[in-house]
């Protein structure tokens, strides 16, 4: 690694002001776990890093609003979210997902904001948050705006955040009576980047009618992808075996998958079909899980 400047602003506003939209070698660093990997590999050589470690402490808070909305400060560590009793009670799917996200030490250091801004499609939180209808609050020099997580990604490692914007907070609407599940599949060792990650979020009517489905795919595409046609195939349907089979076939058709070291595109298509059914069943089985 090469020497660079290190800045530690005391506020998020200052941090945003230190970003240089013209200079891609100036980056903000939250937990830094992903950025460090790029720097050590020699592919990213920053001239200046802006550490967010000392910005206002409220950006590290994890809290549930009265209406059930979950608000996570961008600087909250993944461990803080994982260990939050509130999150476990109201969003068990998030707690469950974090348990197998990378490892304890990474979760101790990595921040929610960084995990969403990094844009590696293999990550677990983006598809899950996208399925839950979460939004990020992006703070720029001029404005503060909200972006749906489902709309945040432009490509591999690429987001629609502007160069002078930082994620300040993530807002996850309350689950209420809806059901959600995130299942991932590793194809080599148990602890690995997934070959496929699939988040489903279902509003259920009565005992068994899916009123509205949100299905988001990770890892098998170059960016987190919402499977809208599959959602349509499920909306208003009772998830019987033939319905699920049809939905699985739709999913396999609607998206172009990327083969990689975890499996060929053809294999991932099979996984998608299987995991779609499993994730929906898993979501419907648990209360919130």
């Amino acid at each position: 690694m090469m020497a660079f400047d290190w800045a530690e602003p005391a506020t998020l506003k200052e941090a945003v002001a230190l970003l240089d939209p013209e200079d891609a070698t100036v980056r903000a660093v939250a937990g830094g776990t992903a950025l460090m990997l790029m720097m050590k590999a020699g592919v990213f050589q920053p001239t200046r890093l802006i550490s967010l470690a000392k910005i206002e402490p409220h950006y590290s808070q994890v809290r549930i609003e009265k209406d059930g909305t979950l608000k996570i400060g961008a600087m909250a560590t993944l461990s803080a979210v994982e260990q939050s009793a509130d999150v476990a009670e109201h969003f068990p799917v998030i707690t469950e997902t974090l348990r197998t996200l990378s490892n304890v030490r990474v979760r101790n250091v990595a921040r929610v904001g960084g995990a969403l801004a990094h844009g590696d499609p293999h990550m677990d939180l983006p598809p899950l948050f996208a399925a839950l209808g979460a939004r990020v609050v992006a703070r720029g020099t001029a404005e503060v705006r909200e972006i749906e997580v489902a709309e945040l990604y432009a490509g591999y490692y690429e987001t629609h955040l502007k160069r002078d914007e930082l994620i300040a907070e993530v807002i996850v609407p309350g689950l209420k009576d809806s059901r959600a599940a995130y299942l991932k599949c590793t194809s080599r060792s148990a602890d690995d980047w997934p070959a496929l990650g699939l988040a489903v979020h279902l509003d259920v009517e009565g005992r068994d009618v899916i009123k509205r489905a949100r299905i988001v795919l990770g890892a098998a595409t170059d960016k987190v992808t919402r499977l809208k046609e599959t959602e349509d195939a499920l909306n208003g349907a009772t998830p019987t075996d033939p319905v699920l089979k049809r939905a699985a076939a739709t999913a396999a058709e609607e998206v172009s998958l990327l083969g990689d070291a975890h499996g060929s595109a053809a294999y991932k298509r099979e996984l998608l079909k299987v995991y779609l059914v499993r994730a929906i069943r898993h979501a419907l089985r648990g209360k919130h899980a």
Partner: protein
Amino acid sequence: MSSRSIRFTLNGQATSAAVETHWNLVELLHQLGLTGARESCGQGLCGCCTVLVDDIAVSGCLFLAVRVDGTKVTTIEHLDQAGLSLVQQAFIEAGAFQCGFCTPGFVLMTHQLLERHPDPSEDDIKHYLSGNLCRCGTYPEILEAVRLAAKAKKAARS
């Protein structure tokens, strides 16, 4: 400015050091003569570089040294200040290591695990330690060591 002067508490001792911004924590510790945390995979996946920063385990190889400014850093070398810890004793009793290169990481992570889950299930242990790798394949013995340590800690409490 790429060189910074930092102050932190290292294994109970007030410490100051001049660091380059691009150094990671393991490099700093090696320069300070502490070699129990070692960089192996360099990607935070194997756990050989485990260090506690403000009592929380981090991968030293992915942690910039400048970031320990103002913190409390604890390394494996501090655990036997008052004799071998119960976890260290359990690792010896269970024969839970071969080459020993990954052992400091496993010992530190086991300390953290038992603080969080004093009575961990097998599943808890496997999940918590899944970010530590042992190429010698000593996992069954490590599992046993964690159980022994949990038992010993429980006994020590009562």
